[in-house]
């Protein structure tokens, strides 16, 4: 994450005290919500992870690290983690490059621009119950339009959601389609905040579009890009609804079993809330590590005003 927390503002002692006072007031509501809605539940989750808390029976005994050991020794956990990382990498690439590419196109002054924009945002707005129904039809191996299309082009039909080789990719395609609108809007907002005058000046100087993009737009977009990357990583590790709605039983041979599906499975399907809590904490640590890595890596690309 690339928010510049460095000290590059002028301040005297008096101003510093004013700043602190203002900061406390401005930050207090945020801090309060974080404590009540995050810290307290998290504390309960930590407590739960050391017990054999069950959803159905009244079992409430302290069991030490047994849940953590079980999860770390569970093949299904590692499979879920592997699937999640695969999902994250592919979706991250699309969230950044594809979304940015389309945002650049939508930024141009072409006619019907507003219609194109809302069309790209539509998948985000359409309830997932509706969009999943139609994608499930699209993916039908027998009569779905995608396979009809492949047949027309003389290519072999695919099993899409019904083969362990293609199920996860099919889910990813659906997710990409569904989430693209979000990131397009973010990139559009970022592009809007680049002063038109910079670009005009560069054009007058004879710069090509490619140069304008790499030398002006991309660097000035870096706060938004960092944000998109960070949120993409976090949301990909947390993905659940899209996967669950396309493959309700974790897909063929559990090929679409991802981290939160695993947690939900432990906590609710199997009723082992203690174990679910433990796996949630492990996920927490994993996401923490990845975002710290991104922060360290991102520090190399500083944004300049």
């Amino acid at each position, binding site marked *: 994450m690339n928010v510049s927390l460095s000290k590059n503002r002028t301040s005297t002692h008096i101003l510093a005290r004013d700043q602190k006072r203002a900061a406390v007031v401005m930050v207090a509501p945020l801090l309060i919500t974080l404590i009540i809605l995050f810290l307290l539940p998290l504390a309960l989750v930590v407590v739960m992870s050391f017990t054999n808390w069950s959803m159905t029976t*009244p079992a409430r005994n302290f069991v030490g690290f047994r849940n953590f050991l079980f999860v770390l020794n569970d093949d299904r956990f590692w499979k879920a983690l592997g699937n999640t990382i695969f999902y994250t990498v592919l979706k991250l690439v699309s969230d950044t490059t594809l979304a940015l590419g389309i945002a650049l196109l939508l930024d141009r002054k072409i006619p019907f621009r507003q219609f194109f924009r809302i069309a790209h945002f539509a998948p985000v707005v359409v309830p997932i119950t509706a969009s999943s129904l139609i994608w499930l039809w699209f993916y039908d191996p027998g009569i779905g339009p995608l396979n009809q299309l492949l047949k027309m082009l003389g290519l072999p039909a695919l099993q899409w959601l019904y083969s362990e080789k293609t199920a996860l990719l099919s889910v990813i395609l659906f997710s990409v389609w569904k989430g693209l609108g979000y990131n397009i809007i973010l990139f559009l907002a970022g592009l809007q905040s680049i002063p038109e005058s910079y670009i005009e000046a560069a054009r007058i100087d004879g710069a090509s579009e490619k140069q304008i993009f790499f030398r002006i737009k991309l660097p000035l977009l870096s706060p938004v890009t960092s944000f998109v990357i960070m949120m993409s990583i976090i949301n990909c590790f947390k993905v659940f609804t899209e996967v669950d709605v396309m493959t309700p039983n974790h897909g063929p*041979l559990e090929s679409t079993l991802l981290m939160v599906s695993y947690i939900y499975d432990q906590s609710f399907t199997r*009723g082992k809330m203690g174990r679910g809590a433990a796996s949630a904490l492990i996920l927490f640590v994993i996401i923490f590590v990845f975002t710290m890595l991104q922060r360290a890596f991102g520090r190399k690309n500083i944004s300049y005003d």
Partner: protein
Amino acid sequence: MKRMVLVFAALLVLFAGLLPASAQTKLKVWYAVSGDSGEAFKAMLEKYDAMTEDVTIEYSYSGNYADTATKVSAALISNTAPDVALMAAGPLYTGARNDYFIETKINDPDFMKDDIYPGVWDYAKYNGRICAIPYGISTPVMFYNKTILEKAGISMKNPPKTWTEFYQIAKTAQAKGNISGSSDFWGFDVTDVAWLFKTMLYQNGNPIIKVNGAKVAPAFSDEKAIEVAAFWKKLTDEKIMAIGQHANAEKKFLSGNLAFLVASSTRVSRWAKDPTLQFGAIPMPYFQKPSVALGGNVLVIFGKDQKTREAAWKLVKYLASKENQTSYALKTGYLPIRKSGLTLPEAKEAISTNQMYAVAFDQLDISWSYWHFEQMGTMDQILAKIIDIIERNVQDPKTALNKAAAELQAEIDG
């Protein structure tokens, strides 16, 4: 303007948080059924509320089975549980908490406990003891598409009895009965894999689980179970059943691309209403002896004090009466749990006008259930998973079943 909105919102929020509670024998009832079933259940609650003066009912739809289980579980911990709930796997929330209140009440003479099918009682037990009242009960039913069988020249006057006989029929239906011209045409499929598999296991003499007192152990990896799994594999190997597409099975059946479908008996009432659907039903084929596994929901009583519990029991008795339960079943596609229910005129009419009802009701005589136990949800999940593995030829039936038993044992050992 913005400030006004903020003040207004804050006031409203404060006010809402201080809503007063009322004071009368109030029964909170949650139910896990929506759509027509929800409407029918709600109607009965409203009627009871109107006819009793000392009791008011506060009812609420609590989401589907899974969401209701979550809500009930959270509510029990936080002491905000309802008094009565219509939910799946209810005994897991009463029996597991040593709450056998219902067991003490069922001997009320006006309840007529022996009028309820014995197999159905097993569906409401934990540790062998009754702790719920069976209510929205269903069995798997073998449906067929009349038009397809007609084209294939198959008559259902003498339906196949064993699975081997059925296999031949399904094969013929698929080969000769294609009415849609689509290449995606199949002979047989099933919507709920674990449910049918358990049915087949029991038919073949496999008890699925062993019970030693409070301990449960998996028993689905012996020779008989392997036989069943091998037959299942034959259906997919010979392309009579599509691999891993059970989620689409019902859609295919409705659009005329599937000859035979095993689905819940709840479909009977829905499909019977539509005259354009040419479907029929036959008794479930069997291996060694005919039987079908039960599914559905039950009524449980939570309730904090004795007075509330007694009031709740009265409500449950009302809901489970011959007239109410039978008419609820006929409206929603669940089955009548009382033998006397079948003597009621509306039941007789349903049977005589629609053959699918007759088949579904008859199956109650051969229905069975194992007692609820903590890991039964996990068991269903594991069974579905290894059937997927067997269908895709990743492992042979013996290895897959042994692996499944080991996994379930690990869960039970905790």
